[in-house]
């Protein structure tokens, strides 16, 4: 642990080194997209200088859901049951509103068995990061199609998918999610920026990250393979993230070439326009863009929709600042006079 080991040169805002954010060794297949995501999560939390002790990392069941063991060893982890992480995470935040919560799930965990809870989590805008490590397949059960597999996409087993995919991003927007992004395990630079943005967001931040399953779903004609994703990835914009504790340097960009989104915690997301002229703060254009690219078969990544000011579930409940878990007894057990009064009413 950082304090006991000689402090390495490079440390973050709160004096912790990158290694303080590392996890235990992965037991996933070498080359698995999920491992790439884990290291970006490590990096993002390090760079954002989040106190790991304050972090709650939760997951469902699946190869993806194993990954919370592989990052942030100093954080509190909960590997729950299949498809039900949203409920556990919601409850954890009810119990302690100050937890920085990140949930990891797979496409099967999220849109097959977990679809209902996923939608209701988004609808409540529970303040957490929700990462879908999307490989279009059930990895841990050895390669059956999940509900995100694209039509006609083919598995190593030869099976061809004949049902339309569920698009996590458009579904999330439909459900009122306030931070919706798509990325690719093979695009670390963008992914880490999107994760940092997610950390600084006050509501649910849903990241749909294409994360190839090298063992079961990495054929070139699979839309969830490295090759396909690399070849088809199109950046919606170039993303830079400026954390709240760093000064925003005063660079001059040509009129309209960039857009700055100020996040809840004072951080900024700077979007440099590429081909498209895209405004991630409009639901309608987000949905239109998603359906168009779905038709055209493009694989578009970036910050698809954000509403930095949406009220989150905890605010809605108007709870005390003190986490409920830490309420002193005298705050949670009313006095004898209260019971007496209640009894009187019933006499």
């Amino acid at each position, binding site marked *: *642990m*950082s*304090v*006991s080991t000689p402090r390495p040169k490079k440390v973050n805002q709160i004096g912790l080194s990158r290694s303080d954010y590392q996890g235990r060794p992965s037991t996933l297949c070498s080359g698995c997209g999920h491992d790439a995501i884990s290291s970006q999560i490590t990096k993002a939390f390090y760079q954002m200088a989040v*106190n*790991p*002790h*304050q972090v*709650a990392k*939760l997951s469902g069941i699946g190869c993806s859901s194993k990954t*919370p*063991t592989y990052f942030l*060893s100093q*954080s*509190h*982890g*909960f*590997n*729950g*049951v299949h498809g*039900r992480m*949203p*409920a*556990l*995470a*919601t*409850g*954890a*935040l*009810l*119990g*302690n509103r*100050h*937890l920085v919560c990140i949930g990891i799930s797979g496409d099967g965990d999220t849109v097959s068995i977990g679809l*209902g*809870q996923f939608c*209701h989590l988004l609808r409540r805008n529970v303040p957490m990061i929700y990462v879908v490590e999307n490989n279009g397949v059930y990895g841990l059960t050895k390669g059956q199609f999940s509900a995100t597999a694209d039509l006609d996409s083919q598995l190593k087993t030869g099976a061809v998918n004949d049902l339309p995919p569920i698009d996590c991003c458009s579904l999330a927007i439909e459900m009122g999610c306030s931070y919706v992004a798509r990325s690719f395990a093979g695009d670390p630079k963008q992914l880490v920026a999107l994760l940092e943005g997610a950390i600084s967001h006050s509501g649910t931040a849903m990241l749909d990250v294409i994360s190839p399953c090298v063992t079961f779903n990495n054929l070139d004609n699979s839309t969830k393979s490295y090759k396909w994703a690399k070849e088809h990835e199109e950046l919606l914009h170039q993303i830079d993230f400026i954390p709240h504790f760093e000064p925003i340097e005063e660079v001059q960009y040509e009129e309209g070439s960039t857009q700055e989104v100020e996040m809840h915690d004072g951080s900024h997301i700077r979007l440099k326009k590429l081909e498209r002229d895209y405004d991630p703060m409009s639901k309608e254009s987000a949905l239109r863009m998603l359906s168009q690219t779905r038709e055209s078969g493009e694989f578009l990544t970036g910050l698809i929709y954000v509403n930095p000011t949406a009220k989150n579930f905890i605010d809605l*409940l*108007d*709870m*005390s*600042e003190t*986490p*409920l*878990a*830490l*309420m002193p*007894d005298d*705050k*949670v*057990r*009313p006095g*004898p006079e*209260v*019971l*007496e009064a*209640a*009894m009187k009413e*019933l*006499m």
Partner: protein
Amino acid sequence: MGIQTQSQEGLQVEPGQEIVNDCSIQVATVNGSGSQSSNNVLMRAIFQMGVPISGKNLFPSNIAGLPTWFTIRASQAGYIGRKEEIDILVAMNSATAKEDVETLTPGRVVIYDEKLKLSEIRDDLIYYPVPFSGIAGEVIKDIRLRKLIANIVYVGSTAELLGIEMAEVEAAIAKWFKGKQKAIDLNVKAAHLGAQYVRDHLTKSDPFQIQRRNKTEGKIIIDGNAACALGSVFAGATVLAWYPITPASSVSESFADYMKRYRIDPDTGKATFAVVQAEDELAALGMAIGAGWAGARSMTSTSGPGISLMSEFVGLAYFTEIPVVIFDVQRTGPSTGLPTRTSQGDINSLYYLSHGDTQYVVLFPSSMDECFEFSVMAFDLAERLQQPIFVATDLDLGMNNWMSDPFDYPDKPIDRGKVLSAEDLERVGEFARYKDVDGDGIPYRTLPGTDHPLAAYFVRGSGHNEYARYTERPEDYVNLMDRLARKMETAKTLIPQPIAEYQEGAEIGIVCYGSTDVPMVECREQLRTEHGIEINYMRIRALPFTSHLKEFFGRCKRVYSVEQNRDGQMGDLIRLEVGDDQGKVVKVLHYKGLPLDARFVTDQIMTHEKRKDK
């Protein structure tokens, strides 16, 4: 005068004999007709006369327009169980009036709306026709309101016939309509007219009387769901996640109401609680578990179907040792079953819930004060044992009206169990989440957010060793499972012990739990007075069993296990527990969906006793 002896042959009374403070009044109406207020007023008026009462509502599983029966039992002997025989029928529902009248035994009383012409049905009953709606018409013109008012008219008439003081009726009305003066005046007026009509047009010819006593001084009337909610409030529960289901909804709804009143922090004006209506029962329990993990005192309430849906999550909480309290207000299953009927059918489900080797603490309150007390205790047990704790009541306890002594303020401080703070960690210098440090099977835990390098651990529903690391090693698994079993042994020292009452020279025993206990005082009285049989009585208050059960069996020749399900679920658990005494168990099973009545049990026992004698 004195306790009447009931029997299917009908009422045996000498001419002129009075039956005082011992009758059951059934009001037959349709639901959604607003009879709730008048039923309640009538019940309260008797209660305020100092006569013990209980009120049971038999309602359909729909919202409006179907037959509903509200039964008030007045008993100065203090019998508050259901009684099969109805003494006084108030027939307000034309749809069921004929059948209602036909099921009465001879000599009973029928108060009814003139229009129904019930006296033609049979001639061995005492009839009191009253033009309820007509009278209501005098009070109010609006047709819809007239319906409501007609209800309060029968209260007046019935009160007059039974000798209930109008002052008490007025007081009861005032209490129900808290301060709504206009409503109060209307209802009082209607009640008086109802009484007036009786005085003017009818002469009393039945033996039933209500006379003032002092048996309800300082008592309260409450339903079990409210009592459980109140208990949870004083247990310091902070997180409730629930999904609506009859008959459990009012546990959560009352809790929410109480919280809004009692648990807004005066300093900040903010809530010291969170109540979430989840999307279903899986999510409800999941949220409660998440909150329990985070360190909040969390709960959910449900009924049978919800218990089934919670199976997977409960197993997770058992295996990862997360505190959470689950209220199961049992209704009649299987499946959707009879959602508005009572039962004790979930015993096996609760005790063995979820796949794999699992076992849970289940608490069985059988009175209002136990609903309160056990609810408080459940949260201490959950955090002390780091396990899901079930509080099992049923529709009868949960939704009916019960008289009770006021609840005692918790005498013990809140027990948060074995939680290590950052300071503790600093002091002890090591932490193994799942290690049996104290030999009681209960490990120590830290709460997420504890700011100490040793605090973090990883919860997983898969195999884990003492350090909460993933493992598939046989010895780790066996070690874990054996400790979990040990924990149940520790639980036995913490849960409420059964209550045993031994009678001099009694050879026959009765074992009960939950609402089944209610009619047992009366039942044992019947066995004593009618058959001269003394009974050793044991009331189980929790699972797992403790030594007392075996001891009880040691002192009985035969033990009647009385419960409200088809399969005698508790009876079998008892048989497993008592080993070689299992042959002593005789199951008495009541599974009609109606609350248990003493007579049923007495008859069952006597039939069996007689059979044995031959």
